[in-house]
């Protein structure tokens, strides 16, 4: 992956979590997402957004993340997570 500023990565992770592609970090254990989970989440977002599924936060992906959009999540339960409350 091209070198990303930590801030960009944080923004990306926040964005993926906000719109349902990544489970929010567990507030109790502080466990962060695994690289694999992050890659899968990015691919899911790219696929949903009609981008090429590279699995990395490339320019097109970051650009789409900055496009104005609806607040509602795109995915209700990211792969492998259960029990997230639906709105």
């Amino acid at each position: 992956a091209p070198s990303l500023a930590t801030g960009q990565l944080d923004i990306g992770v926040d964005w993926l979590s906000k719109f349902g592609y990544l489970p929010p970090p567990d507030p109790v254990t502080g466990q962060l997402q695994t690289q694999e989970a992050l890659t899968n989440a990015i691919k899911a977002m790219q696929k949903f957004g009609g981008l090429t599924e590279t699995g990395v936060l490339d320019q097109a992906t970051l650009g789409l993340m900055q496009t104005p959009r609806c607040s509602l999540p795109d995915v209700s339960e990211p792969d492998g997570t259960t029990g997230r409350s639906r709105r």
Partner: protein
Amino acid sequence: SLKPQNKWTKRHLSWRVRTFPKESALLGRDTVRALMHYALKVWSDIAPLNFHEVAGSEADIQIDFTKADHDDGYPFDGPGGTVAHAFFPGERFTAGDTHFDDDEAWTFRSPDTHGMDLFAVAVHEFGHAIGLVHTSALESIMRPYYQGPVGDPLKYDLPYEDKVRVWQLYGVRDSVSHTQGPGNPPDTEEPPVLLDLPDNRSTVLYARDAPDRCTSPFDAVAQIRGEAFFFKGRYFWRLTREKHLVSLRPAQIQRFWRGLPANLDGLDAVYERPGDHKIVFFKGLKYWVFKDNNVEEGYPRPISDFGLPVEGLDAAFVWPHNDKTYFFQGAHYWRYDDHLRRMDPGYPKDASLWKGLPPNLDDAMRWSDGSSYFFKGKEYWRVLASDMEVEAGFPRLIAKDWLHCTEMQSDSPNVEGKFPEDGGRHLPDHAENGYEVCSCTS
């Protein structure tokens, strides 16, 4: 993708703009309300859902322009980023509520670069409010990303992909043909005037097809809440208890009585039901029951509920002297007990028992003088109190006695032939610089 939460079980949904954009120089309140009306109409045009605007805090869909964190778990984030959201149908108090980020530069009929097109975002959010989720389909209005203005709200056509998804949820609205697909022309009903909703409503355009109250026979007449209503085609006139016309211009039935079908071109009979004072409208083989001016759930229903003939109905009214409901059709009449909800035995009877009345009435109504009035063509008949015989001196002219028309007055735009004494020619024009001269003869 996100699984749909729910769908509305009811079909009549109320909405209200509770708060408006604070800084938008372009978008006045009436324009915002008109845009919300048209954004909802995009969905009600094709799904069996009806939206009507209400005042007060009971609306199903409360619409707010708000900023940053506004306590619903979906904080806005200033210009750009997240711009709006809506809550899915359900039983919760917030179900259907829709929020727009007041930090956005909301625009209307502006180029893409000038800001966020409010109509486009509203159509998307109301898609959520009726139960649709985000989709990855590039041409869908339900894509999560803002895709710029979608053109004139009066001409906007929902992408076929979105029509199919809402049809899967609610079925097809009966006025939409199944063959309707992309590129078909929208229905020809005249939409309310957008942007022409200024504060003084009198500038709303007067529809060309409005009938002339002084020359038209009426489809239906009724006393409702003590006032008289004269229905003709898609319009009606209203008279106060003192028989004063509320307005010389007719109002559109559709806009006042919410829930009648959009393509309704006229009524057969109307009456106010004794007991619960709900209003019953008849058209063909169907009837609708209204509480105030909103239709009740579950209507229309067949008139066979009343035990009436399948041909339809001419007239319906409640006779003041026995509080029974009388239905007329052709040369027969029925007596129905609205308290027991059943037809009295021994009916139908021959309408000639009502001496002096013509067959095939247009309608009938009770009036505050305790008499019953029967209407047909341009004339009306009066029957006093508990009589069953027309009073002497009738029929008289509806236009003259009820609708404040003089012999020479007419509301029809073309007045040729209205002035027989000059052989149908216009009187010479005394105006300078082309202004019409008019005089008031009474």
